């Protein structure tokens, strides 16, 4: 990975922020409604900025960003729409695991998704063939390719062409949150898959499976933080504008207390160390994911409360943030499982778990 300058990093973040405000936020309702055309349109804009393969170096057509730069950009995108930010995260995490020869076959602008799965319970790999069923694979519907991450004691990643014989994807119509990252149930019956590059021994520039999983967790934390920022901005604005009891509702302690709690949660955002390494500390990623997503659920729930009955109506866009935040709490694993993972690592006396 090439090093980016401070100015380039700031510029990338600013572009992501601008894109989120100008292009994504106005389309958030359409994205939430499941519009595939609007998703394609937004994806094209992201590709033009190079955010679809931001982690890849220039020889692979990437922007050469470090993980922390990508996380910062994803957070900005999530202020516009959490689902789109999730698409960017899933695509970057998937592509980062691919070997050079696999990357060479990825068409420009193709959307990929990294799909975590429980080995043996959900899918099995035998002789380069995948069998099983993955429910609610975020970002899988409409994706060009998937990287299936088997989250076992030794995590492994396998690349799967979504059009391959033996694979069947069905849109998850019940998906409640992050709907711009359209989920699918993935059924694989002897579908041919290929192992990705194993970057864990340093022999490849590709990201190891364990690091990719950590990236998903850290990225989900960043998305949750972006969603919470948006919720706070909207609630604050509404609290100044809406009057009850003869005054703006922000004058009521009952409302200002909620806004204050939202501001405190934002201030306590557990930043992932802002270095430019390609790998993330596993325990830090888990902790950040738990803290940020819990905070986002609390803040978005409060934001709807500040709006009152108006906030419960879809047209205001505030209830969508609550649904999106809830999905962050459940992905890539529910937070109680993440707690479990974190404590398992502590019990083993390791700060960085499997990929550390």
């Amino acid at each position, binding site marked *: 990975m090439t090093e980016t300058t401070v100015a380039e990093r700031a510029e990338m973040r600013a572009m992501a922020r601008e894109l989120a405000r100008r292009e994504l936020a106005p389309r958030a309702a359409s994205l939430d409604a499941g519009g595939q055309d609007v998703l394609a349109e937004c994806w094209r804009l992201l590709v033009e900025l190079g955010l679809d393969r931001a982690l890849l170096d220039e020889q692979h057509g990437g922007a050469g960003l470090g993980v922390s730069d990508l996380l910062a950009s994803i957070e900005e995108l999530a202020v516009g729409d959490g689902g789109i930010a999730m698409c960017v995260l899933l695509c970057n995490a998937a592509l980062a695991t691919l070997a050079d020869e696999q990357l060479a076959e990825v068409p420009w602008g193709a959307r990929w998704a990294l799909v975590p799965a*429980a080995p043996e*319970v*959900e899918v099995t790999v035998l002789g380069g063939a995948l069998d099983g069923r*993955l*429910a*609610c694979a*975020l970002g899988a519907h409409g994706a060009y390719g998937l990287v299936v991450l088997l989250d076992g004691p030794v995590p492994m990643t396998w690349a799967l062409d979504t059009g391959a014989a033996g694979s069947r994807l069905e849109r998850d*119509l*019940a998906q*409640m949150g992050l709907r711009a990252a359209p*989920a699918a149930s993935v059924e694989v019956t002897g579908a041919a898959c290929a192992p990705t590059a194993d970057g864990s021994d340093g022999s490849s520039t590709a990201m190891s499976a364990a690091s990719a999983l950590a990236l998903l967790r850290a990225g989900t934390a960043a998305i949750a933080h972006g969603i919470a920022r948006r919720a706070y901005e909207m609630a604050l604005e509404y609290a100044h504008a809406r*009057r*009850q*009891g*003869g005054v703006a509702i922000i004058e*009521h302690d*009952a*409302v200002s207390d909620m806004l204050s709690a939202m501001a405190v949660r934002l201030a306590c955002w557990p930043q992932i160390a802002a270095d430019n390494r390609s790998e993330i500390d596993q325990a830090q990623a888990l902790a950040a994911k738990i803290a940020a997503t819990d905070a986002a*659920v609390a803040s978005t*729930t409060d934001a*709807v*409360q500040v709006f*009152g*009955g*108006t*906030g*419960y*109506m*879809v*047209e205001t866009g505030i*209830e969508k943030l*609550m*649904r999106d935040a*809830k*999905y962050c*709490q*459940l*992905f890539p*694993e*529910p*937070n*109680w*499982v993440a*707690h*479990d993972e974190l404590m398992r690592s502590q019990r083993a006396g390791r700060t960085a778990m499997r990929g550390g």
Partner: protein
Amino acid sequence: MASITAERSLREQYPRLASGSEGIDVRELERLRARARRFADEHVRPRALEIDRRTGEDPGWFDWDLVRAGAQAGMLSFLIPKPAGGAGGLSTQAAVVMEELCAACPGIALIFGAHALGISPLLLGGPSQWDGVLAELVASEHSGEPQLMACAITEPEAGTDVEDPDLLRRARITSHAHRVPGGFRLSATKRFISNGSVARWITVLMPTDPRRAAETWTCFLVDTRSEGFTVSRVEHKMGQRACPAAELTFDGVFVPDERVVGREGDGAPETMIVLACSRPPVGAIATGIARGAYERVLSWLEEDRAATGLLERQHVQLALAGMEEEIHLARQLYMDAATELDHAALGSAMSHPAVRALGHVPASIRGRAPVRGWLHSGRARDATVALLHRTTSERAVTRSLALSSMAKARGGDVAMRVTGAALELAGLRAGPLRAELEKLWRDAKLCQIYEGTNQLNRLEVYRGLCRSETIGCLPPLRGHLDTDERAHTNADARAHLDSDALQHASVDGDGGRS
């Protein structure tokens, strides 16, 4: 899916019933609960997800077949007084029914809950209301073509403000009921009205003088077939979608004097009593939602291969125990509030010998002109208020309101916590269960908002319990608008009356009386 909680008797679920001190016919309550559960199992649960999906695509879509099935199960008349043909239930009955229905689908339950809310102000109108719309509602239930009711209070600029008399004084009220000969003409926009687009009758509250909204706040019974009434739009909601929330426009809708519920200007205290009655059922709605999520996730953990081994985990066991604990406490709160309201605060008025005696008078006699005229007279309305003052007190109603508010606020929080925790236990990969839990989680949020936000409800708890304050929960013995003022208001109204108004009043058959 087995209903784990429902297998327990009401006495087991709410031990205070065992003492028999509440004056409740427990067997009758058990029968009502069993009827509600049967309706929920046979009609509500199987349709819940599909109705949620359809109304998510088209908020105006409404399942009348479900309402007909509910009518057959008596879900529309349990709150209507016995002399009008109903079951004569109060807050306790409404709460028990709501928990059962909400464990299956809160949106569908809300259709019946909003109907009960629409009826509530009529109960305060006393015997004068028995033989009109209430009897018509019962008849419609029996005919197989049921009619629904709604209650309209919220306005675009006044949500929380209209749920509290103090805030009402400073509220931006845009609605106005102008007096005209023979009645009133209503001009208003009312928002987020549950059942608003499907109701045949709506109890609507607005001032007769917007400059003194609190003092002139009045309840009207509106026929939605009236000229000038329109459904402006049906909202696209996050949850509880089966029950449409509508914006309603009243453009000079004529309401005859006979359909003023209670006395002109008594609307603010009436609203307080209605909220005291309706908040325990909202606590029950929330408890039912939490129970629905708990039962579903427990069943999944016990039966689904994807959940194999999870029940052995202490984390899961502790989470389930926490849910059971929260649901139990939420149920105690709403039952405490409902039974206190029904038997300490309002029950005596509803079962007063004078009221019971009138109930024994055949409807055919009550319907004769002289009797009917007297029942709708100002003296009869004054007598109804006097009866309230004799049988209860403002302190008792304030305390009941505070308990109801506590049950509502706590229940709403429990519903959010339990549905959120259930969803987290199941995760995204839980298949069909996930969709059900997600729906309940979306549904749960509304419980923290409607019937006053949880924050407003807790301020009621502060006033009523922490500070032992007494608020004006009963209409004054002498009406807000005394005779001189009434005459002045009438003269004012007449001066502004145009020929068009006269013509409308005439068409409605009530012209010329004032």
